[in-house]
């Protein structure tokens, strides 16, 4: 260890609590990011109730429900992986993260399928069927694509974060005593889940 590192360690201490606090603050910003979209959704739903009703009829409730189950279960597996690491079982912890990522992939596959179906029906911005929609119904699909699209980006980012965390556990930088990065990755994953819990009823269930 060089003298630089020694000085660094003498002056600066590893602060798990601070890192968790930072993560929570970041999650606030994520909630508010989606919050802006929820405001727009509320305003346009209020202005076009029938059109939003008609729009939600076009969505596939079964796929939405399956995806909800996927994400809820993946939140469980990521929580279990934290407990596994706290108990010192690194292998089980990594396995559980991998299962979480598999759920994320399954979710994305369904999403891809859903969007492809919309595409084939011409229900994509700029396509024939889309241009024939009423203004209100177009607004529904604008928001559908924007909000679930932004959420999908978060699913991908969350999965990549978890991949890095798994790598850290394997390398030994995230350990039984210093598991904050896994915990933060898990917190982020729960956020992805929570946002979906709101998106699912807003688009698929409230009809």
């Amino acid at each position, binding site marked *: 260890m060089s003298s630089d590192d020694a000085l660094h360690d003498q002056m600066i201490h590893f*602060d798990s609590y601070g890192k968790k*606090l930072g993560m929570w603050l970041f999650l606030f910003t994520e909630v508010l990011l989606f919050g802006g979209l929820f405001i*727009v959704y509320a305003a346009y739903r209020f202005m076009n109730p029938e059109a939003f009703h008609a729009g939600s009829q076009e969505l596939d409730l079964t796929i939405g429900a399956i995806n909800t189950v996927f994400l809820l279960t993946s939140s469980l597996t990521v929580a279990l992986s934290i407990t596994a690491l706290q108990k010192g079982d690194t292998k089980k912890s990594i396995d559980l993260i991998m299962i979480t990522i598999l759920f994320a992939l399954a979710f994305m596959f369904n999403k891809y399928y859903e969007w492809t179906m919309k595409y084939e029906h011409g229900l994509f911005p700029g396509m024939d069927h889309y241009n024939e929609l009423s203004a209100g119904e177009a607004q529904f699909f604008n928001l559908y694509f924007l909000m679930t699209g932004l959420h999908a980006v978060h699913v991908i980012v969350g999965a990549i974060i978890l991949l890095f965390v798994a790598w850290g556990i394997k390398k030994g930088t995230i350990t039984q005593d210093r598991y904050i990065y896994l915990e933060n990755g898990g917190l982020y994953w729960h956020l992805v889940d929570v946002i979906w819990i709101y998106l699912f009823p807003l688009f698929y269930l409230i009809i």
Partner: protein
Amino acid sequence: MTAIPQPREYVNFYDAKKGLMSWLVTHDHKRIALMYFYAISGFFIVAFCLGLLMRLELIAPGRQLMDPQIYNQVFTLHGVIMIFLFIIPGIPAVFGNFSLPPLIGAPDVAFPKLNLISWYLYVIGGLLALSTLMFGDGPADTGWTFYAPYSVKTGTNVSIAVLAAFILGFSSILTGLNFLVTMHRMRAPGMTWFKMPLFPWALYATSWIQVLATPVVGITLLMIIAERTLGIGLFDPALGGDPVLYQHLFWIYSHPAVYIMVLPGMGLVSEMIPVFVKKSIFGYKVIVYSSLAIAFIGYFVWGHHMYTSGMSGEARIIFSVLTFLVSIPSAIKVFNWVSTLYKGSIDVKPPLLYSLAFIFQFTIGGLTGLVVGALAADIHVHDTYFVVGHFHYVMFGGTGFAFLGAIHFWYPKIWGTMYNIKWANIGFAILFVGFNLVYFPMLVLGMMGMPRRYYDYLPEFTLPNQISTWGSWIMALGLLIVIVNLINGRKGPRASTNPWKSVTLDWTHTDSPPSLYNFDEIPTVTRGPYDYRDYENYIKDKP
């Protein structure tokens, strides 16, 4: 506070590591602060010159040197750079980064790497904003507010400008998050919340706004980009969108952002005044609470930007009442600063001069703010030069002067040398006179009914416009003297560790310039931040 232990061999943070890479990959909050300082100053000078060009165009009625389209683009770029690249990040990123950790007795911020990432995001955002000059139809011509539906229809580079603002917002969020955790977790032992100096307190209130408000404008700007690239109609009334909804979403962030701009400046003034009157600040806790109150109430007043946008009468009245509420904590601060001066041992040095100018100009800006905050009066002066004069008095006359004051205040700490005080005073005086000559006529013009954002005006508005333009040259001269004097100060005499005899930790317990981790040992705090009783014996000023 414990005595300073026998120091390790003192190496200042510049000498701790050498070479270009030691800057580009540094985690040291002081180096990051300086990188911000140079970048922000550069952007400020660019936007300042754009402002001079606008004043030059307005020296007489009719076309002088640019056609209306160019003028629209110039004022938009001036606004975008000044707001997103200078005044929002300015004080937190430069002086927050440099002085927050020493002020609270911390060796660095909580997330040094994140701090560096924020700087890179800032630079990327800044370069993107400037890049709109280079290609296509040039920079956006929408005004810095990017109001829909014009912003989704114009052919200028709105998407890039908006993306730049989004990235800069992200940088701002990360800085705020970093400071919040730093203040929660890294205060020195003994520094309770109410022993924390007032500049950190102001940053604390600011950081909460940065974290909680910025994402809303982020998503709004993304919606503008989506609307432009996908051709969907989120805000375009022709496609079923609601442009007033855009204005709501925009101001939900951008009004709190006004307090991101001014609160740190208020914090700096609270920090500087006690040092130069050698007296405890009047009403410490009230200043703390008023900062928090401004941050809190600031969320609920955005509607006062939209009195003429077609909101319901009830909504407008409520927003007007709330706007009056937010002026109370601001006024409290002004009374506190003035009361601090009362019976103090006043030592008129450049930082104090800038603080006094802040109080004077912020008061004018604040009182004219009440005029535009009042529903009935605003209907008449909305979108006139009165508004332009008002916010320049607050932003430049307030925050800009606080920024300049803070450079003069921490100069010996940052660079370890002292500038020429006499020339600093002369530069200040010319800048102060120039500033008021530029902006006071704008208040008059607004009352006479001259609308903002036009390259031309009626002949009866000529005289005040000419005074304003002449003033802009005086202001530029003042700024030039200030800058040259500061650059020359690098060759000035070596500064002691505590030339102003301040009792805050950044002066009493660090060298000039500070060492890599600021302190030899983290100090334990027992005194209040502005406890000037017996300060001569407490301070150990080292050469």
